[in-house]
């Protein structure tokens, strides 16, 4: 039995997946087919671990989220991965982590599936390794886009012909499955995905939900690069100042009222309205804070500071 490849896939592509190939025989592996034809059973991801929470009474099952430039991976680890489960509980969020894991799917009803990852191994890593993973994943994603493009040109789409063009057997099969299941594949979306991810690697542009201390040292190096940007934004300084003020107020409010599990969206809005802010401004501030990675939404409707 051959070892399953650890695919490098962005969360943006992975979470779009709605096709699963179930192994028919006993012990046959199952795969998730992404819109770009990656036939994923095992995958390798590096991103920011944003939260870990217990979802079972005995503490046997934990759920965690790992965000990359394009989206968020959901990770479940249970009693059969005790090592990982313990490691997840021990890592202080937010932190860069690398994970090798297997695909899991959950299908509440016919036609909709949720994909998640069951980790086999997790390690805290450096920002540098994260950046390298982004590059590698960009490359792999680009290769898949090209392969899908080639396949679309073919009159009769079969894996054998694709394989002859030099694409791997797995990818060729995946693409054929993707083409017949997803219909029109929006390649541009994934090109944009890559471009956005690459933006994170351009110096002076690192605004991922990062570790604050690391950000500070990075920012120092990037001061020179950032200067011209400041000039540009000066014209809009007034509204900027205001929204920064609002954000401050909102952030403070959240910090005031959040407990172990964060604060509910409604409570935050109520409290902020009392402080003289209007609903739109509050929502805008919450979104902006989320983009900056200062807060996140562990459960829908609940906000927590990082």
């Amino acid at each position, binding site marked *: 039995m051959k070892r399953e490849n650890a695919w490098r896939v962005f969360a943006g592509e992975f979470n779009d997946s709605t096709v699963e190939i179930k192994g028919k025989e006993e012990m046959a592996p199952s795969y998730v087919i992404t819109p770009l034809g990656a036939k994923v059973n095992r995958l390798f991801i590096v991103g920011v671990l944003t939260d870990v929470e217990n979802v079972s009474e005995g503490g046997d099952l934990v759920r965690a989220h790992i965000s990359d430039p394009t989206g968020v991976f959901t990770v479940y680890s249970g009693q059969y991965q005790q090592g990982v489960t313990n490691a997840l509980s021990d890592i202080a969020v937010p932190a860069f982590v*690398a994970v090798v894991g297997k695909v899991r799917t959950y299908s509440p009803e016919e036609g909709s599936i949720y994909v998640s990852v069951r980790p086999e191994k997790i*390690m805290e890593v450096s920002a540098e390794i994260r950046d390298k993973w982004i590059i590698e994943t960009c490359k792999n994603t*680009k290769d898949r886009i090209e392969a899908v493009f080639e396949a679309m040109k073919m009159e009769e789409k079969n894996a054998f012909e694709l394989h002859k063009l030099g694409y791997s057997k797995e990818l060729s099969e995946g693409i054929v499955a993707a083409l017949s299941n997803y219909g029109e594949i929006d390649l541009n979306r994934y*090109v944009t995905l890559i471009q956005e991810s690459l933006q994170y*690697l351009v110096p002076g542009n690192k605004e991922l939900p990062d570790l604050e201390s690391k950000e500070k040292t990075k920012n120092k190096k990037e001061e020179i690069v950032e200067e011209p940007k400041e000039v540009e934004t000066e014209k809009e300084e007034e509204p900027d100042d205001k929204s920064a003020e609002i954000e401050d107020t909102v952030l403070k409010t959240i910090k005031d009222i959040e407990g172990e599990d964060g604060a509910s969206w409604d409570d935050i809005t109520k409290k902020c309205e009392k402080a003289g802010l209007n609903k739109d401004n509050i929502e805008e501030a919450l979104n902006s804070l989320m983009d900056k990675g200062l807060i996140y939404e562990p459960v829908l409707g609940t906000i927590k500071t990082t």
Partner: protein
Amino acid sequence: MRCPECNRVLINEECSIHGKVKGNPDLRVKLIVDDGTGAVDSVLNKQLSEKILGIKLEDSKKMSSEDLLDEINTKLFSRRIVLKGNALGDEFGTTVITKDAELTDIDIEKETEKLSKEIEEIL
């Protein structure tokens, strides 16, 4: 731990040929390398293990086996590595009989630039 007579790995402090012996310690790293298109596995001998880990066998003896494993994982997991050697294929996949191993790096800035250009060409 290995048998001082025949160099076999000891199981439960016993050599399958020579019985209970006082073993010689050894340091080897077993690894799986996956580049997204496929995976190979390999075992590094003492010399290469020491080189890749930057730990001498002597020093590793002082560490507990958990600590040593931790150290190996921190140093190697998710890193890029180049293996040179002969490949051996069997029903479980490919094994590389490694003659030389080296951790490598990529230039993030250069790669980013190159990829950005390539992406523009696609559009």
